[in-house]
């Protein structure tokens, strides 16, 4: 073999075009397209009495305006409920344009197409809607109280209620030597990719063909939806995902109203039409995640060993449930992390509110589950006076216990069985990396200078690479170039590089000769999508399998040509050669020529494959069981998910007076099986950690009681800049290969963000533990203002700490951190 590419830090092939400004994102395409703008509801809950669009028609440059009344057939039906579940007894989805009721600020009401976006917005401003106001339901407390309903026909605002259990948790807790209960909150954040949603469509009147370019995480999903909703044959619809400016989950939802309205308008007008979501729209009309209220009951022994765990939580699913119960199911199962509670019961209700829909955002329910579990671990440690790491260690599933069956059902409808892992070793690595055992010295030294430090840790296990399948098609052209297509889409994960590494290794071709295309239904119409840290596992495995097929075919053909046995051949640097006799070789391009018996030559190389040049006249030109062309296609469809794991630790410094929180060190240990490209995996972790910092300390969706989102801008939704993230993230890897796929892969995309709320809650609580004393962090994210208020609240409840506070006030002035 040539130098093995797998496992190497290969520079990304996609970078060149991005760095030159030559990336092609949706809004970079369709210079000739008309532009759409959407009238969105300014009210959280209202009946639509009348929509008057008459003033719009006079606006110069306006081509069309659509309201619900203009929709027909399947377009007039509610949008699909993508993932039905038996427990989702009251699933509801919106219409592409609101029919007679709006259920959140931002819901689409009318769709205007004009010469440009400026004119389209002018037109939107001229539409007059008469509303009958309905009382909104905002927040989980209001949803649970159910004094008002989001949907008249959904009693109690309950979309779904689901319980799973193993053993008898209530009985085990009742019998346990120690018991605790916790009430926890976690608030909304959102994916917030730098590029919002966007769709361009071209209708070819001559061929009756629809082409759609959309910023999505699933080309095939959008294709099926467009075909079904517009009444087109699937074969007449192409969906192409161009460069995507980040997804993080929000773009797996489909079809967005605009993904249907844009092609609808393009067909109606006979002109290309484009919709590019702006930032305010992204906040109020795309998706959010994370909001839950949780109640934990736990019973444990003197070592902190879990004996029974009983969790109930309430999940805010927003106004509709297009993505089913995926997020709360993941919370309810992934909550268990690396631990074995023996007796576990989890119950959740998924509740409607008059707010933006809740669908997966990087981590997809896992951050909430990890938060519940890790807060519980910290509470047990505090209660027993034990080291927080020790309490976790005593509960770990041990390396010899894999595969470990939790006897629960995971998000893919399959048994929750962990395939492999080594949690004790991960913890050892984390403790070494962050200096766990020396921290009390570090803390004391800082305290002597009036500085307040805290250390937190959090552990997680992440089901990755969920099914049902992905596929790959590989074609070796006669030039020797290797064209690879897989159907899932790319939003910055470096698939063009990582997948090419796999092909180069398996096929024995130079990395540079491999070109990977993703998310183009013309090239690979069978695919699922990019979510749940599945691309490397699913498409990576499929590509590996497809490359193997191409290799086997190439060897068969070459064996004929070289008059050698297949077993004696190898492919090196793009040539098939006889092992030990490198002079006896044939280039893969030539093999490609031979693979495709021709009648007509189109160049010199192809002449070698024409009928008077090759072939045994006594045999069919294409042998039985073979197909022309040096191609291979294969699919990977695993029985169940593979389970990655990791542990994070953070050291924070908190200002005793202003409660400002500074990150001093951040450490990650991570096991995603074998690494294809460590550079890319490291980048994924960096990005996840930064998003986690945002979700833990800065970002939240601030709805008022009327359902207005008060911070729908980058001014007030506080995504971290470089100045808010750790200056350096220390990373160590463990590689426990998955036995479920040929390359031993586990997913890595979401990992960085999963334990963030938990690890920061742990560190902040640790920093604050002496003053005001046993302060419990039970709501995340947390801002300095909230931490300050928590301190004050705690001091009022704990007057004994007043003395300590007075002492501190007298001594701390000269030691304060200077905020400038």
């Amino acid at each position, binding site marked *: 073999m040539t130098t093995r590419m797998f496992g190497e830090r290969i520079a990304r092939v*996609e970078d060149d075009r991005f760095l*030159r400004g030559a990336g092609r994102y949706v809004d970079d395409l369709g210079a000739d397209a008309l532009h759409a703008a959407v009238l969105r509801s300014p009210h959280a809950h209202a009946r639509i009495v009348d929509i008057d669009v008459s003033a719009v028609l006079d606006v110069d440059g306006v081509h069309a305006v659509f309201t619900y009344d203009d929709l027909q057939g399947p377009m007039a039906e509610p949008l699909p409920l993508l993932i039905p579940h038996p427990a989702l007894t009251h699933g509801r989805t919106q219409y592409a344009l609101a029919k007679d009721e709006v259920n959140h600020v931002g819901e689409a009401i009318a769709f205007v197409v004009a010469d440009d976006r400026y004119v389209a917005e002018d037109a939107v401003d001229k539409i007059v809607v008469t509303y009958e106001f309905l009382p909104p339901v905002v927040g989980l407390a209001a949803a649970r109280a159910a004094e008002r309903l989001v949907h008249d026909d959904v009693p109690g605002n309950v979309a779904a209620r689901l319980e799973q259990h193993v053993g008898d948790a209530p009985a085990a807790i009742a019998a346990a030597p120690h018991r605790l209960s916790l009430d926890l909150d976690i608030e909304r954040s959102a994916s917030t990719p730098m590029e919002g949603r966007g769709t361009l469509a071209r209708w070819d009147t001559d061929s009756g063909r629809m082409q759609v370019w959309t910023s999505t995480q699933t080309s095939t999903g959008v294709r099926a939806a467009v075909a079904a909703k517009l009444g087109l044959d699937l074969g007449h619809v192409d969906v192409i995902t161009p460069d995507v*400016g980040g997804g993080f989950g929000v773009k797996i939802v489909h079809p967005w109203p605009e993904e249907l309205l844009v092609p609808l308008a393009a067909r109606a007008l006979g002109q290309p039409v484009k919709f590019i979501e702006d930032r305010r729209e992204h906040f109020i009309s795309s998706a959010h995640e994370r909001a839950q209220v949780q109640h934990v009951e736990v019973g444990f022994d003197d070592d902190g060993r879990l004996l029974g765990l009983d969790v109930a939580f309430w999940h805010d699913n927003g106004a509709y449930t297009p993505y089913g119960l995926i997020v709360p199911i993941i919370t309810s199962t992934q909550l268990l992390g690396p631990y074995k509670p023996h007796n576990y019961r989890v119950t959740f209700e998924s509740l409607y509110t008059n707010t933006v829909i809740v669908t997966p955002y990087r981590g997809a329910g896992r951050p909430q589950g990890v938060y519940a579990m890790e807060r519980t671990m910290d509470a047990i440690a505090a209660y027993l006076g034990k080291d927080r790491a020790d309490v976790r260690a005593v509960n770990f599933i041990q390396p010899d216990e894999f595969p470990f069956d939790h006897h629960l059902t995971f998000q893919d409808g399959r048994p929750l069985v962990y395939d492999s892992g080594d949690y004790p070793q991960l913890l050892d690595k984390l403790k070494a990396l962050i200096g766990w055992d020396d921290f009390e010295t570090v803390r004391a030294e800082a305290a002597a200078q009036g500085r307040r430090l805290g250390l937190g840790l959090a552990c997680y296990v992440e089901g990755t690479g969920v099914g049902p399948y992905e596929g790959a098609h590989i074609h070796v052209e006669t030039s020797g170039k290797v064209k690879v297509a897989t159907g899932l889409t790319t939003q910055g994960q470096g698939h063009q590089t990582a997948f090419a590494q796999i092909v180069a290794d398996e096929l024995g071709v130079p990395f540079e000769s491999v070109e990977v295309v993703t998310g183009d239904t013309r090239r690979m119409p069978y695919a699922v999508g990019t979510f749940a840290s599945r691309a490397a596992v699913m498409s990576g495995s499929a590509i590996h399998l497809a490359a193997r097929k191409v290799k086997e075919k190439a060897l068969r053909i070459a064996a004929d040509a070289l008059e050698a046995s297949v077993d004696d051949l190898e492919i090196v640097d793009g040539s098939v050669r006889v092992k030990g006799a490198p002079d006896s070789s044939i280039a893969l391009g030539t093999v490609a020529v031979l693979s495709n018996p021709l009648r007509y030559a189109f160049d010199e190389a192809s002449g070698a494959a024409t009928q008077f040049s090759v072939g045994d006249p006594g045999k069919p030109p294409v042998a039985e069981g073979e197909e022309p062309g040096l191609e291979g296609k294969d699919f990977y469809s695993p029985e169940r998910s593979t389970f990655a794991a990791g542990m994070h630790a953070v050291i924070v410094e908190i200002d005793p007076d202003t409660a400002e929180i500074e990150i001093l060190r951040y450490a990650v240990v991570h096991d995603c099986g074998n690494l294809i490209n460590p550079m890319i995996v490291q*980048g994924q972790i960096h990005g996840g950690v*930064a998003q986690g910092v945002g979700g833990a300390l800065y970002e939240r969706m601030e709805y008022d009681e009327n359902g207005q989102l008060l911070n729908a801008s*980058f001014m007030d939704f506080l995504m971290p800049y470089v100045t808010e993230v750790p200056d350096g993230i220390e990373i160590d890897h463990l590689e426990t290969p998955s036995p479920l796929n040929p390359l031993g892969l586990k997913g890595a995309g979401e990992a960085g963000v999963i334990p963030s709320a938990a690890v920061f809650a742990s560190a902040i609580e640790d920093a604050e533990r002496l003053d005001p004393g046993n302060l419990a962090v039970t709501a995340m994210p947390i801002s300095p203002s909230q931490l300050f208020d928590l301190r004050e609240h705690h001091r009022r409840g704990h007057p004994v700490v007043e003395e300590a506070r007075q002492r501190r006030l007298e001594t701390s002035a000269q030691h304060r951190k200077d905020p400038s």
Partner: protein
Amino acid sequence: MSEELHDVRLVVNGVPHDLGVPARRLLSDALRHDLGLTGTHVGCEHGVCGSCTVLLDGTPVRSCLLLAVTVSGSEVTTVEGLTNADGSLGPVQQAFKDCHGLQCGFCTPGFLTTITAGLRDNPCPTHDEAKEMIAGNLCRCTGYQNIVSAVERAAELIAGEGESP
């Protein structure tokens, strides 16, 4: 009621362009949609994210916070203008590639223009100065770690260029 058009002359990456645009046309839209220079990206349109940063007469500005008409007569440098004369990647671009300073690539043009001007004004930034240089640009993918490395790497590359004959 068609809008009044204003004559706007922009010299973009050394090439003069004459446009007729409404007064309200944002510079970002003029570059992207009127001139087809789609390398400049629009991430928020309210001046916070920095994706649309271009150099106006050499100085980094948010192109979404400028009306094209008000900067008529100016020289604008966009990401398309940052490559070397021979077409190879410029030093800041090369450093981003070397350091894996980008993932989805959407915010990248704004970083590249900002850093190009930043290193011109401060060719040897300290680590803190490297961070400060990019402190007004949002990235949702990278966590900034490798972008800071890329600033430092670009400074090395530029210094190396100066030394070579």
